[in-house]
């Protein structure tokens, strides 16, 4: 154990709140989310604002409470999403890596089961995600993408709203906490 961990333990001396999931759910849930993103949109057009892969990333990172795992998980989801898109591989990957990391880091300090916190974090991370993607597209790849802030704010809110019941559904996948 390092000093850093010690300090963390001092700050948040809760029960080891690491939530465990069935191994399969780590694979199936994000895949379903991505698949939904790619293949369900065309059936139901109005869900296009939904960023399920992002919500999944936030949820798993938050519940797992380990920044490393959060980052890796985010990267995997992002890269998978990238490879099904028509842009460069890595654009979503980079952003979702950061999202995973931040979500996991935040969860070390806050009670991740509170709906209000989930709402706030999801909203903030959604905005971060969109801005991040925009920044990557604009500065790293050199594409000209419009940053539509009001639209982003509304979409973030809708995503955050959807996230609450969605997370509750995902909560069922939890294994019993140690």
């Amino acid at each position, binding site marked *: 154990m*390092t*000093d*850093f961990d010690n300090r963390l333990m001092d700050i948040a001396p809760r029960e080891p709140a690491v939530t465990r999931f069935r191994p399969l759910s780590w694979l199936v849930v994000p895949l379903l989310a*991505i*698949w939904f*993103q*790619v*293949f369900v*949109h*065309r*059936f139901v057009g109005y869900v*296009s*604002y939904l960023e399920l892969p992002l919500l999944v990333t936030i949820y798993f990172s938050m519940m797992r409470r380990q*920044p*490393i795992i959060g*980052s*890796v998980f985010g*990267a995997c989801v*992002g*890269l*998978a*999403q*990238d*490879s*099904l*898109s*028509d*842009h*460069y*591989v*890595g*654009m*979503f*990957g*980079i952003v979702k*890596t*950061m999202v995973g*990391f931040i979500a996991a*880091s935040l969860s070390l300090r806050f009670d991740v089961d509170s709906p209000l916190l989930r709402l706030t974090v999801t909203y903030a991370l959604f905005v971060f995600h969109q801005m991040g993607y925009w920044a*990557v597209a604009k500065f*790293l*790849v*050199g594409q000209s*993408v419009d940053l539509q802030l009001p639209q982003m704010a509304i979409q973030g809110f809708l995503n955050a709203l959807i996230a609450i019941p969605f997370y509750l559904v995902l909560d069922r996948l939890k294994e019993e906490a140690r």
Partner: protein
Amino acid sequence: MESFLARFRHITVLLLLLMAQLLLLAYQVKTNQEVRLIRIWAVTAVTPLARAVESVSVYWNNVFTTLVRQREVLSENERLKGEVSKLRIENQYLQGELATADRAKVLLAFAQTIPSKTKAARIIGSGTGSNARVVYVDRGSADGIARNMAVVTSKGIVGKVASAYPTASLVTLVTQQGFVAGVVSQVSRVQAILRGTGSDLCTLDYVRNPFALQDKEWLYTSGEDRVFPKGFPVGQVRVTKKSNTEFEFKVQPVALDHLEEVLIVVEGIHGAIPDPAPAPSQEVVILPPPPPAPASAEAPAAGAEGFGSTDADRLREKYRKLGEAQGHTYGGSPGRPPDFNKAVPSAQPKPASAAPGKPEEGKPPAAPKEPAPVKP
């Protein structure tokens, strides 16, 4: 070092991940090469599932319609026996089947009316980006699909194949930003370039003769982009006059609503811009194209309109007319020499210029045309 890394291991992992992806990105951007393998895996892995779900969804769709209709049938024919209703249900179900078959039939019929060789494909997904206008279709390089092939339906053009994977292909839609197709209008035969904007509407660029293009005129592919064969409908143009010389042209592509099945043009053969209605489609409520102009003879030949002329050309025309008016053959006809100061006879003879020796008022030297009017 050890403790340092241990202490900041979270952040280190994050940075490593980011760095790795940055390198991946940098590789793609700099070499301009796709990491095609990754994509092929991903697409190939996901398509079977999508195909399965697609067929299931079609099935359920049918069942659902059937159920809805069944209730109607029951309420209408409540005195009918269960046996009969069961038959009805069966009947209805078969009809639902037929409906899907019909759609395919229309496409098939359409495919037979056009000269190009096509392959039917079903749309199985859309792109992941929020503003990307791309779709996946269930035919890939294994079916002979290659990049840059045109994608159409009986209603009109849809897009073109951006990349072909073994089992599926990514199709860029007409509305995707940067998409370009050559179009020609049906009545005035004005040539232009259709450009996707990333929104539902496309714009027209490089309109050869903006004054001739009429509002609500139908646009067809001109075949000049070498992607779309000539003669596929594109959409109706909406002309907005911004000023006397400036126009804005918007086009709503007709074929993008309710995309289900499409045709991929494997071997394009140019057709004609149809004079009557395009191939009939049973889904269309509005009859698309108006009857064409009686004569399309005024269709400007390519290049002719782009020909510039100089002052020399105008002056030559003037002198030629002048000679003709005076019955003078230049360099010939000994006898009466021509009078170069007579006004070019344009309309009615002007009294002022009839007087011999009366030249026109000093006109600016660069005036290209002989100004006739004399101040009162």
